[in-house]
């Protein structure tokens, strides 16, 4: 399958195979008016298989969200057909407003205007815990 390269926009590369759709949804890419390509199970020398997302417009992305979902992703910014910036995403120390605490005893369960905040407590295992009650993100 051949997809033409984009001239201007963003390419999310090295997404874990099967993870592309989750990123597409959580980044709300379906709401964009520009062309967006979601490629599943592309061949990868490094990973064997990978997913790729191409966005044909230079938009702002929340890199912390991407880092929480899949810390191995590479974000390429493309301008005039060339990659002008490449960022290797890492798991962020703090994730705000993405995950919801499931602990019914947490203060966020009753005061719902509070910003949900999760901190990274184990980088190796990718464990995030609620800042308020320390419950593990699920």
């Amino acid at each position, binding site marked *: 399958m051949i997809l033409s390269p984009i001239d201007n926009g963003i390419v999310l590369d090295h997404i874990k195979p099967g993870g592309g759709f989750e990123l597409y949804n959580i980044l709300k890419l379906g709401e964009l008016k520009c062309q967006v390509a979601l490629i599943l199970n592309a061949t990868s020398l490094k990973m064997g298989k990978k997913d790729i997302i191409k966005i044909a417009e230079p938009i702002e992305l929340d890199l912390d969200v991407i880092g929480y979902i899949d810390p191995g992703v590479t974000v390429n910014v493309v301008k005039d057909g060339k990659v002008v910036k490449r960022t290797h995403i890492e798991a962020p120390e703090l994730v705000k407003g993405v995950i919801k605490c499931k602990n019914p*005893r947490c*203060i966020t369960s009753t*005061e719902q205007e*509070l910003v949900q905040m999760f901190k990274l*407590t184990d980088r190796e295992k990718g464990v995030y*815990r609620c800042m*308020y009650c*320390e419950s*593990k993100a699920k």
Partner: protein
Amino acid sequence: MRSLIDILELTTQEIDELIDKANDIIANPAKYSEKCRGKKLATLFFEPSTRTRLSFEAAMYELGGNVLGFSEAQSSSSAKGESVADTIRTVSCYADIIAMRHPKEGAPLVATMKSRVPIINAGDGGHNHPTQTLTDLLTIKRKKGRLNNFTIGFCGDLKFGRTVHSLIGALSRYENIKIILISPDELRVPEYIKEEVLDKKNIEYREVSSLDEVMPELDILYMTRVQKERFFNEADYLRLKDSYILTPEKLFSAKADLSILHPLPRVNEISVAVDDDPRACYFDQVLNGKYVRMALIMKLLGVR
């Protein structure tokens, strides 16, 4: 401005200083009787309490300060649906320091984000209770003369027992502490305590269900109540509430210098017949709680 939400926010050096200060207050109470003259402590208790609230209030009075606040959520605007954030914004206009208890975990952290004055976590749900930990540490230090080199058994409700969680965190920073966790399967210590504290700090611990089999090993026995208010299902509470009852007979195999601690209130998990045993320290804890809270209030208000 400094608050206290989690005991681990204090270094071991700061804890040592608070213990030293509390011991000095015990020895020379008159020296401290005017230290907080003109200062006000607000005690905001959204959940019932006897010891913690009264010890905070007694502490502030003995420092020469004043106290305002409420002792149940129903007597505050919380009953009308006011948020923790708005309550704290309001009270921090009137008080110099706030001690707060709330049934929801993380509520005192929310308070620190909105407050203009120091916040002391006086217990948040089943999460943390740092000033009880200071009380426990002062009691252990006074009884044992040290905060290292002992085996401590935590017995009862280790899942919702916030005093257990905070004390385990504090003790994990001292040398050669061995921990035995005694509980029914349903009330085991939460996984975050095991993963984030015990495993990360390589603390020697084991989980058992029989108090009798480990009693001879213990230097300290920390009993806890199975807390009715933490259960969503009363049937579960009734099934578990009498899991462990400490009696004089059960202490036959214990060490002669065992220290028995309990954060109180107790229901029936320690027989009153144990109260006269010289190894019972839980009413010493009650008194120590006032002195260590005096030391903490002074520290957070920057009073020397």
